[in-house]
């Protein structure tokens, strides 16, 4: 499963996130949780979203599923979804009802495909139809994502009953058992309540529920964070194995970049509500381009990368009510120059050799940096001196 194979995936585009912005309206100012985020996801791909907490990665997941609640608000952009051309009942209905929408939303823009539907334009009924049958989500905390008063079986079958009303009670039960088997849970657990299951079992049960309608895309929001390392590993293997067999796409959200380096096809690094770098895992492992990516990569010990001194990133993420002008990362960036303080970097191919590795940083923009592009070694030196300077000020105080 090399990077090459994936990028030549014949399945085509599944989801295009275009210029999505999300604001939270708080009493003491508007929080810009996402600003102008665009990503394309190919069929069968695993897309990793990484960043510190508050970088907007979970907000993006909730925006895609339209689960954001007030005071959060999607202030702009499109979520273009490309339903698969198959003769499924659900697909047919979905496409039929939203085709007009698709045309409407692309007016004035570059027309992507007449088959695309904008998730943001769905009516409540269309949204209900779309949810889970096309896109399901695995939540961070398995303990809290299961209804404590319903048994596992009921939480699987209520999806089936809602989305496939023709299915009989027996068939639903059979399907539920089949799903539990698929994720390695004994069928007799179908009557168990969440509190009777271990943490790992609960997360498996949630994955079983997520698979119930064989969706095209599963969003996994830190699916293993709450689990201990051994179970974490098991669940990850399970997810990879299931994806191999069932061929769904995954958006995998984590703060642990090293995890993504092992399993994601494409990785988007987020900072202060924007994507700052997008690359395949190979590219990123070999040479992160954005200073933030480098810093993030070196906040976690990696199994594969060369041994480096762990310095972390100085400072803390910005207040999203008051994002620094220019590049939001400049107050923490050890390589920041004058331009970073006032000019917003554009998203560009980093170097001619790696046209697919996009980065929003003036270091790769010929207008601001005509010279050499930084290397890992230079990043390391700069971060270390920033680290030492910080230690120095601390002592002085």
């Amino acid at each position, binding site marked *: 499963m090399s990077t090459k194979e994936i990028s030549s995936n014949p399945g085509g585009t599944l989801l295009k996130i275009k210029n999505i912005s999300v604001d939270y*309206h708080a009493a003491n100012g508007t929080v810009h949780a996402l600003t102008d985020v665009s990503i394309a996801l190919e069929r069968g791909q695993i897309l990793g979203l990484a960043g510190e907490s508050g970088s907007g990665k979970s907000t993006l997941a909730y925006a895609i599923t*339209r689960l954001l609640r*007030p*005071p*959060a*608000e*999607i*202030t702009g952009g499109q979520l273009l979804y490309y339903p698969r051309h198959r003769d499924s009942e659900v697909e047919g209905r979905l496409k039929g009802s939203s085709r007009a929408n698709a045309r409407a939303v692309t007016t004035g823009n570059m027309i992507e495909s007449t088959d695309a539907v904008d998730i943001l334009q769905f009516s409540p009924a269309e949204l209900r139809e779309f949810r889970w049958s096309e896109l399901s989500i695995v939540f961070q905390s398995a303990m809290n994502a299961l209804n404590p008063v319903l048994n596992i079986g009921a939480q699987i079958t209520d999806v089936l009953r809602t989305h496939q009303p023709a299915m009989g009670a027996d068939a639903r039960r059979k399907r539920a058992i089949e799903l539990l088997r698929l994720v390695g849970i004994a069928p007799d657990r179908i009557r168990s309540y969440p509190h009777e299951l271990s943490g790992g079992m609960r997360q498996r049960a949630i994955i079983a529920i997520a698979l119930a309608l064989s969706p095209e895309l599963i969003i996994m929001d830190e699916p293993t964070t709450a689990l201990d390392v051994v179970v974490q590993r098991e669940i990850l293997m399970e997810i990879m194995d299931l994806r191999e067999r069932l061929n769904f796409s995954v958006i995998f959200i984590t703060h642990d970049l090293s995890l993504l380096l092992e399993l994601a096809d494409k990785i988007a690094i987020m900072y202060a509500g924007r994507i700052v770098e997008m690359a395949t895992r190979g590219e990123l492992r070999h040479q992160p381009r954005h200073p933030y990516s480098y810093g993030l990569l070196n906040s976690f010990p990696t199994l594969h990368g060369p041994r480096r001194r762990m310095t972390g990133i100085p400072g803390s993420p910005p207040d999203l009510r008051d994002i620094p002008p220019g590049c939001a990362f400049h107050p923490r960036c050890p390589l920041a120059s004058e331009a970073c303080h006032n000019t917003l970097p554009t998203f560009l191919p980093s170097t001619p050799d790696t046209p697919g590795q996009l980065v929003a940083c003036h270091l790769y923009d010929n207008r601001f940096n005509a010279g050499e592009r930084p290397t890992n070694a230079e990043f390391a030196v700069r971060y270390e001196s920033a680290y030492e300077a910080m230690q120095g000020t601390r002592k002085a*105080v």
Partner: protein
Amino acid sequence: MIISSSTQSTAMLRLRDTWRLITLNRKVSFGLAILAFFVLIAIFGPLFFPKDPNTFSQDILQPPSAAHWLGTTQTGQDVLTQLLYGTRFSLVMGFLIGTLTMIISIIIGLVSGYFGGWIDEVLSLATNVFLVLPTLPLAILLAAFAAYRGPLTIVIVLVVTGWSWGARVLRAQTLSMRNRDYVEAAKASGESTLRIIFFEILPNEISIVAAEFLGTVIYVILAETGLEFLGLGDITSTSWGTMLYWAGNNDALLLGAWWWFLPPGLCIALLGAGLAFINFGIDEIANPRLRTEPKGAKSSKSRKATAS
């Protein structure tokens, strides 16, 4: 030195923030306004009507008029004067008994939650027992057997029957606090247990104490009025409850003297609602999810995108 002064100023800042939050909350402001209204009446009202509220007169059962804004009772007492003095009495009683009750709740709740073990077993059993015992019948029983009827009896009776609710809530909170870092740190630095309980833990539960205090005051005012209405208070004193007692005993209702029994009850309900509003506001500040969502702030298009 630098550190301590900076924490002090952040503490001040936090206090100011809290105050801003509190006054920004419409429910709290509304409740505070009602409470302030009654406090002002209690303090200054009697100054404007210095007449003894129990003075009889020839104006018997007069409906509201220029001479008697809220009419008179069957014995010719001025209802407004009674109401003003009654406000003072009921407020003082409410807050006095509320404070005493809260002190007991705090001691039992914090001690029970902090120590755990058999102390907790015993104290929380007592708390739960008092919680399920019907308070008014118990209060009636206590008041009936008291050798003397008057404000002191009511104070004792209501404190005895009212402490359990606050104690239960504070115990639960203390239980979740006793293993926090700052408590461990205080323990490690050798602070005395009493100091830890009342100077480290208690200040962190102040919002709960405030909410429970307000709830207790509401309970006290309602229960006090109930006892007095039954004639278990000092019926010669002037309070909202005794006004209702006399109104009830003299068939104000059948005589159609609505001006007699309506005002005291409205005052109780208004004051109670004011306190309840402050309480709900504090709840909302502590748990922002409870806030009523603002309306009309968003365009219809974006609302569609966020609605689900």
